């Protein structure tokens, strides 16, 4: 069933070179994305504009194309004029598509329902095996076009690669323009940005709740760092930690029931657990040095964190309930800001290598370290929920920009805004339907 996806996926994983740059900008978006890695060995796919899709704007297929190309795994082939009348119900001339070098094909249509809503239907074909891989119909209204297009992209991506797509997920980040800080939420392609919080004082360390409905972050609006939990839909904010001293580095437990935070209320920077409403604060560990940047393992059993207890900042691990810590990183003298992959098998973190701050990945079983980026002021890595990409902040031409690199280091994207500094990105979770 998945012979095509597997074969392609393995091939891509081996061959994707850091070659020709391909530009894909979302015109309406403030964040625009440029793919700086990826290459000739992408899966060739034809996506014929859906019959009748002119009835809604923006065009669904244009968004799907941009999504798939941005992943670095696909090359979208132009469709011939004659194909434009095809729908998901049409008979497919596989040899014809094969001669156009397509390995996969998507056909679809958009219809208007009696209640004024729209229905989009599509099918994904394996051209090589001359088979239907699957098809779906979605009902939508006019303001769900982008969301629906991303769901279609997710479906196609999963059918062809065997892994879940992240086109429907959202990202959070902070934009600084002049004296103004804005915590923004956007689609994973940078479009549809919305401001959740605007402030004249810094905002750092946004962290998504596991259900994707709340953000914990650190705001300096009280002239010191205070941890808030912010419900995105209502805009309601709750103080999660405002103790004497500094309150920072919030991380959600995988079940969303509590936060790990760094507090200095008992001196130094130490890791505590607290309920999202600020109650039930409990110290998890005691050390003489700095302990900060906690993050839970996906199974909730461990907390990875940064500590300078050994003389230089390194990543450590301790049981989530508290207890003995073990050192995890050993190479180099500055390893901070750990994030664990969704499968729990690897860590992404910032490593200083001869003055450059870069994203490193540690395979926890093999204990192999790989430097993934070639920039020099990287910060705040965060995994996409399927583990394939790592979003990060870096500096380019003196300006803060977001960047993304595939977990194998082969595909690179850059996300920039028209003005201002972008920093502190956090990739949100899968959206539950």
């Amino acid at each position: 069933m998945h012979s095509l996806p597997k074969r392609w996926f393995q091939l891509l994983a081996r061959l994707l070179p850091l070659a020709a740059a391909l530009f894909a900008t979302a015109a309406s978006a403030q964040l625009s994305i440029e793919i700086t890695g990826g290459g000739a060995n992408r899966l060739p796919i034809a996506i014929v504009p859906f019959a009748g899709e002119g009835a809604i704007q923006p065009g669904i297929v244009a968004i799907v194309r941009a999504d798939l190309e941005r992943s670095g795994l696909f090359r979208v082939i132009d469709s011939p004029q004659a194909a434009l009348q095809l729908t998901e119900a049409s008979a497919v001339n596989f040899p014809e598509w094969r001669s156009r070098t397509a390995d996969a094909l998507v056909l679809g249509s958009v219809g208007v329902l009696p209640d004024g809503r729209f229905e989009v239907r599509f099918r994904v074909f394996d051209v090589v095996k001359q088979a239907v891989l699957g098809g779906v119909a979605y009902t939508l209204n006019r303001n769900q076009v982008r969301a629906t297009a991303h769901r279609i992209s997710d479906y196609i991506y999963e059918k062809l690669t065997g892994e879940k797509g992240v086109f429907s997920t959202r990202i959070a980040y902070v934009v600084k323009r002049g004296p103004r800080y804005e915590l923004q939420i956007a689609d994973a392609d940078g479009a549809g940005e919305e401001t959740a919080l605007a402030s004249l004082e810094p905002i750092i360390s946004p962290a998504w709740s596991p259900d994707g409905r709340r953000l914990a972050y650190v705001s300096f609006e009280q002239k010191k760092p205070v941890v808030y939990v912010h419900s995105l839909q209502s805009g309601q904010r709750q103080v999660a930690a405002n103790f004497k001293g500094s309150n920072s580095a919030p991380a959600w437990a995988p079940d969303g029931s509590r936060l790990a935070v760094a507090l200095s209320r008992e001196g130094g920077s130490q890791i505590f657990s607290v309920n999202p409403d600020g109650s039930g604060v409990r110290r998890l560990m005691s050390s003489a040095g700095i302990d900060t940047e906690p993050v839970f393992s996906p199974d909730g059993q461990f907390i990875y964190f940064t500590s300078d207890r050994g003389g230089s900042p390194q990543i450590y691990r301790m049981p989530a309930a508290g207890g003995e810590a073990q050192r995890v990183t050993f190479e180099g003298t500055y390893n901070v800001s750990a994030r664990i992959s969704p499968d729990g098998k690897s860590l992404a973190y910032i490593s200083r290598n001869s003055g450059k701050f870069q994203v490193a990945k540690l395979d926890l079983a093999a204990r192999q370290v790989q430097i993934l980026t070639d920039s020099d002021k990287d910060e705040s890595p965060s995994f996409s929920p399927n583990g394939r990409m790592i979003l990060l902040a870096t500096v380019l031409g003196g300006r803060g920009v977001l960047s993304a690199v595939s977990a194998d280091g082969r595909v690179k994207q850059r996300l920039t805004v028209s003005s201002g500094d972008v920093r502190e990105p956090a990739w949100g979770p899968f959206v539950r339907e």
Partner: protein
Amino acid sequence: MRAIWMSVIASALLAGCASSPPDEQPAATVEDRTPGAAGSSGAQTKPLPSGQVARVDLTQPKPAAGYSVLKDPKSILSKRSVYFELDSFSIKDEFKPLVEAHAKYLRENATAKMLIQGNTDERGSREYNLALGQKRADAMKRMLILLGAKEEQVESVSLGEEKPKAQGSTDEAYAENRRDDILYAGEY
């Protein structure tokens, strides 16, 4: 030009000597004069008789009652910043008199409350820098308490790399940003 400039300074100094009580700073005309303004001011050869100049000072907010000495530029208490070496968290000897003076003030003013804000340069992780800034703020708090300030008078917090005093990515800017700032209640 130079002669005029000298005579302006001389006359202003004389005026300052004649009019200023010993606990006030010298007349502002001396310190604020810029070379560009010297030509026109230089024509002013005859200052007002002493005692007839009203002092208008827009640079200082109305001091909270009893706290004015904290803002007096002649008092060491108006010095509020302590600078740190790279990767260091210990108060250098040159700043010890400053910390001692603030400890004495806290001892003598039991209701006074202080916020220490630790800062770092921009290199590295924001959260780790926040922890480093905390370490700097804690270092000063510890010294103040050793010198007799009470725990409840002092809060040490960190701004990390988030509120740089000096912009830019130079060694000079970094040095300026590795710093503790002292604020008293009413100033933050």
